[in-house]
């Protein structure tokens, strides 16, 4: 009897729950219908966002992702950049589109995830890797070239105009130029009995580094590894063929060329003499030895290093370019705009590109952010003198040397790919170990690179 009662109760409960389920299913259908209509509305609003915005009175938002997230105490330049962005946002606060700068640490990841999903951030200040090829292939990125041409911004965008040109399209404009040369410590040079003539050719450079090592007071030549990859860049730039190779994609022909072999072996030999204990895949690991401790002769780094030099060493540290009157300047990543946004959003995004390359903002990028501005119309020396700041003066000197070098080439990482560059750096670092057979390691590197581009 008890079992029957329990069975009846269970059956009633089941029927009840079934009915409730069906009821909620109906409700669910209703919700579904509502959702469908909402989705239709959303689709319609995407098609005509301006009309939607004007109907509802809501403003559209133009999201701008950038990587200047650091606290002012950690990196003052980040705050200076954020101020520049905020100024633009405030100036357009009354417009139909709200400009919203978003500082993120994982900017590149955000871009990758969006691109993998078939979308692109409204605007992004793309990092070192530049605008992903996948985004360009999917037509997700706005071509800025027509806008630059119509508004005569060629000088304002500077090197971006040529380096970022991809078959007549420009997908990014970097407000700062990654300008690279060398920094050397004149005091260390003097102690070792060498002069700036060491930068006339790579053989003299090697001899000077040997004399610094002979000092025996813990001083060493230079920070190798990541830094010495620029030796390869500079040696290749010393010949016309090499320059062409740097500007194009990496091919098997380049990998097997004499120019590449000579460049790699020059760098590897110098690195081996310099010692593996002064070799790192990230310059930052040993940077204090140069900027603060003053125990390194030479640092391969960008012009921005001016702001990192300790006050006690400002007098001693000088900028110089690579042997053969060569410098490395790359537009790198930069501001990229999404394709297919509403007219109002696109207009504001383009306005932002113009703003960032304007003389007014570019001056701030030079004096406050302490970077090499892309705008070619600025007189950097005059700006530096006006600032009265020792670091800015050094920066001006370094920028002027890089910008006026006889040969200016792009960083191979941007044309050959970051995976190729890291394979080269790994090979260089292994060659720095005493006794490593450089020829054998180079042959292995060639095989690795051929496989990587396959």
């Amino acid at each position: 009897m008890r079992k029957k009662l329990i069975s009846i109760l269970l059956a009633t409960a089941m029927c009840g729950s079934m009915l409730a389920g069906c009821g909620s299913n109906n409700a669910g259908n209703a919700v579904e219908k509502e959702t469908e209509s909402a989705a239709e509305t959303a689709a319609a609003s995407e098609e005509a966002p301006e009309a939607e915005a004007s109907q509802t009175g809501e403003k559209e938002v133009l999201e701008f992702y950038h990587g200047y997230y650091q606290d002012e105490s950690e990196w003052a330049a980040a705050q200076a950049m954020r101020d520049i962005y905020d100024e633009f946002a405030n100036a357009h606060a009354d417009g139909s589109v709200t400009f919203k700068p978003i500082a993120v640490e994982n900017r590149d990841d955000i871009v990758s995830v969006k691109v993998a999903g078939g979308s692109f951030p409204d605007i992004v200040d793309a990092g070192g890797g530049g605008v992903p090829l996948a985004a360009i292939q999917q037509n997700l990125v706005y071509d800025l070239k027509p806008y630059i041409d119509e508004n005569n911004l060629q000088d304002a965008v500077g090197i971006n105009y040529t380096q970022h040109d991809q078959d007549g399209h420009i997908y990014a404009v970097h407000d700062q130029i990654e300008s690279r040369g060398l920094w050397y410590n004149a005091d260390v040079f003097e102690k070792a009995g060498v002069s700036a003539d060491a930068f006339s050719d790579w053989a003299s450079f090697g001899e000077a580094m040997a004399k610094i090592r002979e000092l025996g007071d813990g001083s060493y030549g230079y920070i190798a590894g990541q830094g010495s990859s620029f030796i390869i860049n500079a040696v290749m730039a010393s010949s016309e063929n090499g320059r062409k190779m740097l500007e194009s994609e990496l091919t098997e022909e380049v990998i097997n060329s004499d120019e590449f072999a000579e460049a790699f072996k020059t760098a590897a030999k110098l690195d081996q003499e310099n010692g593996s204990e002064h070799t790192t895949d990230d310059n930052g690991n040993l940077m204090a030895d140069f900027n603060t401790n003053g125990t390194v002769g030479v640092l391969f780094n960008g012009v921005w290093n001016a702001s990192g030099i300790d006050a006690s060493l400002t007098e001693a540290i000088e900028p110089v370019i690579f042997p053969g009157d060569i410098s490395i300047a790359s537009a790198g990543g930069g501001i990229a705009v999404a394709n297919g946004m509403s007219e109002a959003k696109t207009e504001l995004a383009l306005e932002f590109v113009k703003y960032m390359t304007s003389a007014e903002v570019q001056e701030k990028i030079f004096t406050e952010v302490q970077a090499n501005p892309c705008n070619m119309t600025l007189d950097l020396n005059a700006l530096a003198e006006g600032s009265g700041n020792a670091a800015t003066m050094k920066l001006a000197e370094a920028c002027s040397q890089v910008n006026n070098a006889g040969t200016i080439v792009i960083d191979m990482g941007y044309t050959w790919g970051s995976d190729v560059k890291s394979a080269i750096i790994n090979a260089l670092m292994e060659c720095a170990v005493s006794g490593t057979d450089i020829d054998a390691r180079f042959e292995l590197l060639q095989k690795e690179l051929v496989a990587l581009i396959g």
Partner: protein
Amino acid sequence: MAGLQTNKKKKNKLGMRRTGFIMAFLAPTLLVFCVFYLYPIVTVFATSFCKWDYTNITSPEFFGFGNLWDNYNYIFNKYPFFWEALRNSTTWAILGAVVQIPIATLIALALSRKVKGVKWVRNIYIVPNMISTAAMGIIFLQLYNPSYGIINPVIRLFKKGFSDNILLLHGPAFVAMTCAYIFFTGTTTLMILGNIMAVPEEVREAAMLDGASGLKQDWYIVIPMIKGTLKTVSTLAATSGFLIYNEVYFLTKGAAGTYSISYVIRELAISSPRTQFGRANAVAVIQILAGMVIIVVVNLLYSMNLGKKRIDR
């Protein structure tokens, strides 16, 4: 006869009901499993046979049966770091099971002793294990630094004038990276310790009466009783050894022959400007299969051992 048939029907009905209930309760778990486990695995497997890179990032294209193995062919025959990575990851997996587990067991046995201050030592021991492997990577980078790290001066005691960066030496770099993770056995030790503590006191007392004390008790009573846990932690240690990534990223970035399978996946999918998802997934399939092999091998080894014991008895 009729009564028997009615009984059979009743039993069948009850069986059906029970199955229905079981299915109803299993359904949410199965759903979650399918969405979050099965679907990604199937996707990884399927796309490993597709052209999927920067040219078609939102729409992987099946190679077709003629070129079915293109990605695998590239990984096995062209990609320069695959075999090195597989060899390293396999070695780390073996070391995980063969070195890490005995260390963890010895420490757990030591910590299970009822001596003064053992609780304090237990807590102190666990602290470094709470540090992330990423932070650990950075710490070991300092430790191995040839200018101010503590390893080079120790080496100089035996080899005068040694100044090289050990993270750039083929062979020593692998050993240095292994040392950066293998001694951190906190979780494993805790799992083993928990099981040791669960060994009934009566069993220990009985062993004592039989004259087994100290190490003998550990060897003949405790270890056989925690064999199940040892098998589990061995599987975990071997798989985590096989999946090592952070140590490679922070210490060498693959230089001096230290690539790992996980690092190769990163290189193909993220570092490469050509965003080679298809090829990365081919490596991921190999990683999944290797994981399964590890589980089978560990199970096999433990069952073989058990069989031997039974024969001994």
